[in-house]
């Protein structure tokens, strides 16, 4: 399938507040992202970056406008369909790594394969391959709790990439890491996603990291503007 992997058309998102008031977080957001390209999203705290990512992943619904994931309109899909679409097309990376402490690293990486019901051996092989690519192959069977932050985020990256999703979403993936580890993770994120031919949308507070993307967009007062460096 060709065409953009992700497309926002005049997307609004408002949250109801106490009383009859509403908080408009996103207004008329328009943009699209192609496979194999990267897009950095910047903006002040509270500007709606995470909300935008939630909409892209189909875990939140716009109040107006359309979100198209790989050409499929997410708006009217029932929850189960959206879950399945997310499972097959989206990989997510978070600021907090969200690894399950009672599982080994390998098992953490395998999780999306398990959820999808993929072949266990194939999943395992793929997980080992990814861990190898982030230089953690030798620690695959350790419990996740024993790793450093950078290592954890690398494991989380493998988890997101396990099922070769065409879209990768990352919300401040380096927000919890020191500079060096952050740079390493960022490099991996860009390299792996382009290796896999996936579209990458990431949120960052760092000018430096934003500059690594093919394109940079800024959110201000709920509106999208292209960022001048």
């Amino acid at each position, binding site marked *: 399938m060709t065409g953009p992997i992700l497309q926002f058309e005049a997307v609004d998102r408002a949250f109801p507040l106490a009383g009859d008031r509403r908080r408009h977080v996103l207004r008329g957001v328009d943009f699209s992202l192609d496979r194999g390209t990267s897009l950095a999203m910047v903006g002040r705290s509270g500007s709606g970056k995470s909300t935008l990512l939630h909409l892209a992943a189909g875990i939140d619904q716009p109040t107006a406008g359309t979100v198209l994931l790989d050409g499929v309109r997410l708006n009217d899909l029932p929850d*189960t369909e959206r879950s*399945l679409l997310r499972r097959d097309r989206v990989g997510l990376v978070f600021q*907090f790594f969200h690894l399950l402490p*009672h599982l080994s690293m390998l098992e953490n990486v395998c999780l999306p394969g398990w*959820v999808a*019901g993929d072949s266990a051996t194939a999943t395992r092989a793929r997980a080992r391959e990814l861990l190898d690519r982030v230089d953690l192959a030798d620690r695959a069977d350790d419990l996740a709790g024993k790793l450093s932050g950078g290592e954890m985020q690398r494991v989380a990256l493998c988890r997101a990439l396990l099922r070769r999703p065409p879209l990768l979403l990352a919300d401040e993936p380096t927000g919890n890491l020191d500079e060096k580890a952050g740079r390493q993770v960022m490099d991996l994120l860009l390299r792996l996603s382009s290796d896999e031919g996936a579209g990458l949308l990431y949120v960052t507070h760092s000018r430096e990291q934003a500059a690594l993307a093919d394109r940079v967009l800024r959110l201000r007062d709920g509106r999208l503007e292209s960022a001048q460096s």
Partner: protein
Amino acid sequence: MNPRLLRAALAHWRQARTLTLLTVFGVALGVASVVCIQTLNQGALAAFGGGMKAVSGDADLTVLGHGPDLDENLYPTVLAHPDVTAAWPLVRAWGRLAGHEDAYIEIVGVDVFAPVRFPVRLGDAGHATGDVTRFADLLHVPGWVALTPAYAEELGLAAGDTFTVAVADRLVTLEVGALVDFQRAAPLASRKLALMDISQAQHLFGHRGRVQQFDVQVRPGVAPEAVAAGLQERLGPGAQVLTPAQREQNAAGLLAAFRLNLTALSLISVLVGVFLIFSAVHASLVRRRREFGLLRSLGASRRQVLGLILLETAVLGLAGTALGLPLGYAAALLNMETVSATLTSIYLLSEIEQMHLPPLLVAVAVVVGLGGALLGALLPALDIARRDPVVLLGAAGLPERLSRLAPRLALVGVGVAAAVMVWYLGGGRAYKVSGFVLAFFLMVVLPLWTPLLLRETVGRIPPGGFGWRLGLRGLASRLQSTSFAVAALAVTVSMLVGITLLIGSFRATLDTWIGQTLVADIYVTGASWQRDLGQTWLADDTVDLLVEFDGVAAADLQRRLETRTDQGRRVRVVAFERRGDAQRRKISRVPLLAGDAETVERRLLAESVALISEPLARQAGLDVGDTLRLRGPHGTTPLAVVGIGYDYASENGVVFVSRATLEGMFGPGGVAAVALTMAPGRDPGAVMDALRVALDGRAVELRSNQRLRAEVMDIFDQTFAVTRILQAMALVIAVCGVSLTLLIMGRERATELALYRCIGATRGQLFRLGLSEGAGLGVLGLALGLAGGAVLAMILILLINRDWFGWTIRFALPTADLVWQGVWILGGAVAAAVYPALRASRTPATELTREDLL
């Protein structure tokens, strides 16, 4: 207490509504099971006391015989005592109402000319309804009785109506002469009471010159106990003089083992309830640890925090108690009939017709509910209060401590087990309660081993997919929640399985025993036989007719009565006589535990010796060759024990003697039951039909071998019916625990669930994961409980039964029962998981904001 602190706490519990409800419900069920059992226990005793009060009124002393009755010629001796101001004889007999299934009435004959100090004097018109003038007919109208209005109404009788009762094999027509409300003076008395003239009663039901008791009134200001001693001396060893308190004590003693067992059982529910509280409080405190950290950093003292937590728990405990009291009382009412049936069929006590909630029991319920709740809350509360505010505010939680503590807890468990064993083997077993002590500590050790077992079993399961194995692995990762649920379930299942094994084994043993002992073809008794212990018997011509009936090859005649050993132990004495075919053995069909069958048979016939039942041998420490001393109207008679036999009819013990021996001790008396063996080739069914025709007009009951066996098994099942409700209550509490744990887990790991959603798991998948966790808890609790139950069954059968009852029970596996219980437990656990799983499946993926995960 700072009101703002309190308001914050209340807000929390309101928010966590399900958690609160489950906690309160857990306490309520624990309280309910205690209240239920204690109400029934009290009801049983109160029924006896009420019956005593209705019949004996405010008599200070009662003279009873050893055996079924007393010589009325002792009357002058009683009256002659200088401190006795009044005494009156009573004749008592049980009648069975003709035309009513299983309706009995106690008929009491009183002497109207004696200075009877009755609760309601027959001539007292104030309490009587109906035609008062009819009291004049008391003496000369045959069959004149006074009935309670309640029972008369129930039977559809009015003053002047007649009705028929069967006493032994006699049918007697009685006339409702007056309606008198005895219950007004003795509210707990049975309504099934009838009063009539003593000489008429003697003539109709009793035996010339015999009475059941003398009630005695002593001179005001003199201690009845002192008079009792003097009277006892005058009357000699043939009679016993008892105060009302002693009589109540005797009844209580009779029921002691029965009551203790039920009480112990009900305490298990409390134990499981304490687990539930522990788990709920712990979870709520973990969730609110920041809140407490904040309170502490704002200047609240440790004691204030501790006080706040305990106060909260106390409120929950009281709410649970308030709910549990009526629940328990309702459960008691629901079980009144079966327990009452046990009282009458096994212990031959009065049935329970009404119950009340004694104020003391309300206090006990509060202590149990409040105490249990506080006990459950104490450890987690102390833990929170002890901590530094910094630790509480920090991100690092308490959760994983239990995983590290697991080996140490298990070690403590081993230590406790070892200590208890050392105590037991080193002399503890001499105590009668030692079996209960072992059982209690089993229930303590099991939970101590649970965390380690969980960690080392399910904690090592490779997930390999998004299914039940991942769920199980997850259980091990939340030991601090799951351990409690599994432990509570394991304790409950242990109890279920232990008791099921006990009952199943006992039942199988009884079944075998019945097969060996009930071998005659037809059993004949009088209609009121079940309530009677030797006061009445079959007419001689009835017995002759049976023995000589066409088709009957042999007949075993049985006379029975109840008396005491010289040590005061209550025993049933059963005497046999064989008529007809002399080839077969008579008494030795009782399977022998000790003694040689031939010798036992020969000596029983020839000498004044006894074969005793196993419980009596064990409880009284008697062996073959020892001497048993039985009290009788002529004093104490020594009987050499020639054999010990298996017998499951009475926990108090049975003494088998020849009829001649019994006659020598208690004087002449008739036969209560006859067992007929058919001649070869004769069909018992046909003979029974012919007998029915021949016996027309006599109130006898004919039972086929098959029917008698079925009745015995029914009585057995009835006895254990009340345990079923206790088992059910404990199971419900444990299932609440499963629900609670899963809810807590769902909340504690909202981020984990949100992660699954982000990865693309559907709600359905999360729901199924939740269910499989419930099932996992169920399987784990079941597995651990089966092991615990097997041990508990051994304690119950080998120790508690031996010390309290003394039966030989052979182990049997009631497979079907156990499988069903397993199905129920698993089903319960899965059902308990439905709501939490539903809640978990609704976790929004956007919850991924917290940092609980790495």
